[in-house]
């Protein structure tokens, strides 16, 4: 089936708001090439469970597509139209399973050496869309905070190496009550600028006490869901015919209830958490990976005004000889390795924040928990500098925003 054959009843399996959206724009969707449309439908089918920022972006994209003339559609999608799609792909149920179609399309593109052409088409489309529908600046400049090194008493290697050129390094920060000061500052922003899913606190371990105005996700709180997921995956892997692709499909179909989530009454956040565990590689095993990936996805999807990420020690990767010697099986933590992971994670958090609208006004703080080192980036912070001023974190934040 091709897009111009689409009919409203084919979307009966979509959640209610997504169904209404797609019905409203059916004529628009019929004009799009098959190499593009399922990627869009993959977002549409999730519309009921998307964050406000995502919903708004999708609505604007669809409205823009509807406003294009026939000639413009031809122009915008010329490169996509040149992508060769196999008959086998055309026969897939890409309306009801757009995610699976996109996975198989990716394999097809690699196999037929069309990945570069598709990549260029996608980048060109994104550029055009940004030009036609410029992203809205945030109502208040964004603030990102990353706390690294929980549990590390001494670390002599230089930290923040990738971030130093972009900000000011402080070496005499007062560490007392640091996390509380930061959480209070984040809560104050949440109250001053109450935006749904606008202010986040992500913890790679056990979450600290925090204001309920914050959207909070923690590795510890998801422990039962992680364990349930690993159990299910192990059970499925043992079944005949189960391979990596089938497993990915199965994971993509998982719902909050499958992992024991869904009791808190926030379907959007529940769905988000399931995706963190089923789509993120390593998020089920390493808390540092979990914290970094959660921050990436929160920034990309929810576009928060405030994001505090606290990394915690992950489990230690045992070397082969220890595994073979079958020593006591107690979970050990790797604090130093986790600090190195988190230092890189802080850099990625900053990079991902800077990809959002309003980047030139955004600020970012990274702090070595319980220690005196921090680095601040923002319009008011001179780049590539060091300061020996004695300062607490509240004061430092006040200089930044």
């Amino acid at each position: 089936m091709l897009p111009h054959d689409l009919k409203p009843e084919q979307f009966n399996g979509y959640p209610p708001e997504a169904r209404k959206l797609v019905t409203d724009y059916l004529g628009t969707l019929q004009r799009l090439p098959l190499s593009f449309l399922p990627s869009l439908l993959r977002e549409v089918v999730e519309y009921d469970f998307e964050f406000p920022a995502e919903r708004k972006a999708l609505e604007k994209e669809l409205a823009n597509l509807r406003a294009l003339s026939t000639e413009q559609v031809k122009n915008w999608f010329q490169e996509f139209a040149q992508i060769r799609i196999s008959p086998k792909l055309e026969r897939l149920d890409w309306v009801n399973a757009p995610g699976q179609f996109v996975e198989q399309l990716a394999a097809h593109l690699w196999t037929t050496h069309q990945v570069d052409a598709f990549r260029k088409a996608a980048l060109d489309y994104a550029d055009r869309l940004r030009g036609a529908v410029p992203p809205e600046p945030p109502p208040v400049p964004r603030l990102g905070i990353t706390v690294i090194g929980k549990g590390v008493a001494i670390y002599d290697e230089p930290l923040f190496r990738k971030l130093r050129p972009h900000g000011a390094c402080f070496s005499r920060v007062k560490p007392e009550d640091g996390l509380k000061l930061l959480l209070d500052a984040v809560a104050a922003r949440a109250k001053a600028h109450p935006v749904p899913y606008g202010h986040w606190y992500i913890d790679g371990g056990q979450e600290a006490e925090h204001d309920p105005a914050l959207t909070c996700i923690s590795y510890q709180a998801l422990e039962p869901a992680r364990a349930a997921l690993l159990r299910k995956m192990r059970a499925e892997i043992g079944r005949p015919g189960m391979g990596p692709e089938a497993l990915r499909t199965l994971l993509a179909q998982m719902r909050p209830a499958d992992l024991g989530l869904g009791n808190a009454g926030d379907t959007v956040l529940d769905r988000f958490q399931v995706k963190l565990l089923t789509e993120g590689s390593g998020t089920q095993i390493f808390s540092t990976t979990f914290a970094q990936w959660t921050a990436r996805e929160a920034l990309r999807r929810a576009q928060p005004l405030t994001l505090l990420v606290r990394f915690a020690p992950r489990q230690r990767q045992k070397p082969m000889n220890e595994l073979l010697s079958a020593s006591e099986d107690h979970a050990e933590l790797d604090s130093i390795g986790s600090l190195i992971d988190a230092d890189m994670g802080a850099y990625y958090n900053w990079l991902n924040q800077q990809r959002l609208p309003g980047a030139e006004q955004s600020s970012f703080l990274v702090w070595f928990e319980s220690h005196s080192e921090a680095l601040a980036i923002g319009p008011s912070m001179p780049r590539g500098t060091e300061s020996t001023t004695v300062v607490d974190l509240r004061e430092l934040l006040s200089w930044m925003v």
Partner: protein
Amino acid sequence: MTFILLPTTSRDRLAADIASTPQERARQLAFSRREFLRTAAGVALGRTLLGGHIARAGTAPKKRKVVVITFGGGARDQETFAPEGQENIPHLMRELIPQSSFFTQVVNRGILGHYVATASLATGVYETINNFSSLPPEHPTVFEYFRKDLKRPASDAWVVAPSNGFNRIGESNHRAYGSGLGARVILPKHLLTAATSGGSDYEHLLRDNYETPFYAPELGGSEFALQQLETMLKLSVDDFKAHALTLSSPDELSVYIARRLMRQFAPSLLWITLHDIDIAHAGAYSLYIEGIRRTDRLCADLWKAVQSEPEYAGKTTLFILPDFGRDSDDDSGGNGFQHHRTGDALSRTTWMMALGPGIREGVVFDRPMEPTDLVPTLGSMLGFSPSLAQGKPIPELL
């Protein structure tokens, strides 16, 4: 507030960042790589270049041996050849690069999955087989060309591979080659499973690959694996287990097996695929760096083994090359070092070094080449005709 200005340089920004096309990005990446090498290994490079030393050994093709080391899971320049990464590869920088011809721009235009990319390296054709299925390459492998053309026995070509999914890498299903003409493949993790009779404690260790960490194709033949140990490697199960207990990673086990093969069979064509770096897929940066450091050390160990084994010393060419790179931090479609999914220039552009008699030392070549050029180059070196390979012999090595 008082601020002290730090010295800042642009050295940690790849010129590739401002390039506009993939080709231009690859060229600039290669240029940066060359400049990094020139700066870090300048004395050795300069001296050798000025001297114009070409160490032709004149080894007859019949006696010549080749060892190929590939990495399944590339490493980016910022963690290796760039100034901030050089601390992770001291052996490559100080010991191997000064002795090698180094190619800065090896562009992989195929599928960026480890099995299919390694199969492409071994056939000289961009294979399109399913990366996660246990399938043979569709085109003849270097081992088949080598053995058929030169009438070499099975014991003269070996592959040491990281995971069960690589068990078909030694032999294609091509009609004119295939059955009985390929390399013997040894899977150290499979050996370990057989020797230890499995066990849940090892599940983490024995996982097949890091791209699909929860899935490992089942392989039968534990009895055959144990026979390999005892009859071919002359290693008792107990000795093997005892030695494994002294090693920290599967790649160390692979290198141990490779050294054992060199001692027992002295194969003329030995292909070793390392995989520890690919732990990067789990997203823990420190483990990725550990993998790079270990791989650096193991490459140097293998080169030392080549020089210390009488069957290899003075007549062996060593090739080291990652199968491809990893995603750039700058591509929002990826997640930095973790994967190789974007198909951007950084994930496609890797490097290769060659060292041994007849190879010019301390020379850097910037021109673009492809991983499929390896098999035709080996053909020219060893005297066989890889007639179906797509690549071209690398003249700088011949």
